[in-house]
């Protein structure tokens, strides 16, 4: 560098160069000023969308609730919109049943995988397993739906011969598989960010590996783990394709996972893709159900945020 400069025989004055470049920067300054506005507009898109959706939900739901009383809607236990019965409980029940099964599948499996990856796996194993796990998250849900219907249900039927073709069990199970990577990956991140100094402190007192995991790492990563679970649950609540394909279309207020059920999302698919005439009560009921679903996922997200703020890692 030095040599080439000398050979060119030029002498430099950095301050002078900065000075002369400054004159050119008036455009740069303008850009500098516009950028925050531009970025704000980009950020505003999502806010405006949310507000728009909320507004539509409210307007159309109000239309619906002028036909069907809001009390009947939330307290009725029959959902047969084509014969005029709009008690949403069976749909909520269906959604909750699916979510429950999915949670029972995803939380233990996801947590164990996370513990394995973060605390036990060698670097090599982690480098292979984690991406594979994350591929699970990239599979389109319609594929999961078919997987549930054509593979998981027949497999379960082998053990439960009475199991119908459409049932909550395989739908919920596969939704659980779908949200598993989320639990595993986010929990693993939370455990990984627990400082090594804490593990060392625990080992230094004669802890075994399991004691370090259970008594030090898990408590320290608790908020991250809970947030991951709540987020995963809120995905399960909103999951549509899998349950539409595999869990059936029978609004059914039941706790029996072998029966066919219908979730809120599956009803919306059914009504939105069927020959529902615009302006009919069923058409408006889409919005009331959609609104209810939205409130569910919103509450879950708020809980997740609250937990991760309240129990923010203190290390």
């Amino acid at each position, binding site marked *: 560098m030095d040599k080439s400069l000398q050979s060119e025989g030029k002498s430099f004055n950095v301050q002078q160069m900065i000075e002369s470049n400054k004159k050119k920067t008036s455009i740069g300054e303008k850009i500098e000023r516009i950028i925050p506005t531009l970025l704000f507009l980009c950020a505003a898109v999502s806010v405006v969308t949310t507000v728009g959706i909320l507004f539509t939900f409210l307007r159309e739901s109000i239309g619906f609730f002028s036909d069907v009383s809001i009390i009947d809607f939330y307290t009725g236990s029959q959902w047969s919109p084509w014969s005029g019965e709009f008690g949403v409980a069976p749909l909520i029940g269906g959604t909750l049943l699916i979510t429950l099964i999915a949670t029972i599948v995803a939380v233990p499996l996801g947590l164990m995988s996370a513990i394995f990856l973060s605390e036990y796996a*060698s670097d090599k194993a982690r480098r292979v397993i984690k991406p594979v796990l994350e591929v699970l998250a990239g599979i389109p849900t319609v594929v999961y739906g078919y997987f549930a219907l054509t593979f998981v249900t027949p497999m379960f039927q082998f053990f439960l011969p009475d199991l119908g073709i459409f049932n909550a069990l395989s739908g919920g199970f596969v939704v659980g598989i779908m949200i598993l990577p989320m639990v595993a990956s986010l929990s693993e991140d939370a455990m990984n960010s627990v*400082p090594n*100094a*804490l593990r*060392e*402190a*625990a*080992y*230094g*007192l*004669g*802890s*075994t590996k399991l*004691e370090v995991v259970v*008594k*030090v790492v898990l*408590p*320290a990563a608790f908020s991250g783990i809970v947030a991951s679970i709540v987020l995963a649950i809120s995905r399960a609540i909103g999951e549509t394709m899998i349950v539409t394909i595999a869990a059936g279309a029978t609004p059914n207020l039941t706790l029996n996972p072998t029966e066919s059920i219908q979730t809120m999302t599956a009803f919306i698919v059914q009504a939105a893709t069927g020959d529902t005439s615009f302006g009919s009560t069923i058409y408006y009921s889409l919005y009331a159900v959609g609104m209810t679903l939205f409130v569910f996922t919103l509450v879950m997200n708020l809980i997740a945020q609250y937990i991760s703020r309240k129990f923010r*890692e*203190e*290390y």
Partner: protein
Amino acid sequence: MSEVMVKKKNNTVNKASKREENSFGLQKEKANHIIEVNDLNLWYGSDQALYEVNMDVPEKQVTAIIGPSGCGKSTFLKTLNRMVEMVPVVKTSGSIKYRDQEIFNRKYKQEYLRTKVGMVFQKPNPFPKSVYDNVAYGPRIHGIKKKEILDQIVEKSLKGAAIWDELKDRLHENAYGLSGGQQQRVCIARALAVEPDVILMDEPTSALDPISTAKVEELVQELKEKYSIIIVTHNMQQAARISDKTAFFLNGELIEFADTDHLFQNPQDKRTEDYITGRFG
């Protein structure tokens, strides 16, 4: 005795006589060795970090380990409770005996060793739990569950770490809210709670302010009544102030190990002299 004479003539003494010389220097006190290190070599992968270390650690005294950064002093310390093996590529050879038992023996349980040989780390690392739960952690994992007993252990340990008076009304506050110096003394209390035999301290004051440092140093003096302490320090004045014996490490080798006064006033090795007089490091 004669070894001393030999040593004065010749800087490169063989290890056996060096060890005898060490114990000779301690004859006035009881020269019990709680840890005996023989021909210890250690590699991180293919990089050798310790070369043929021989060192006998006296009981109920403070042994300081000094040396420039990267000389292997922390590695050596962590080898004594086998924490160094948390790095997967570590290999060792040689022998370390704790109370005449070989700790590298396959049947020797690391967990057991670490209840006997406790450790205090460079940066205070309390658990994100209450002061009480921090101190009670060790006893609890080793099966002590009774509240009255734990209460007593916590009080005794915090008193032992000279922090009971400051914290007795804050036992159930999160240890993260304490100052760095208080956190470090809680960590010391946590180590004391399992009543170890030996306490390893890895630069325990390097993250602390001078007042906290003074408190920890004072504490070390009190602790040596009951515990054997091995302390790694960057700070030669600290070593001179608080230790009975000092070991000087350089590039993975133990260069000199002698009574602290002796080592600082009359270093036998040129490299020790250069280091303590500030010519390098």
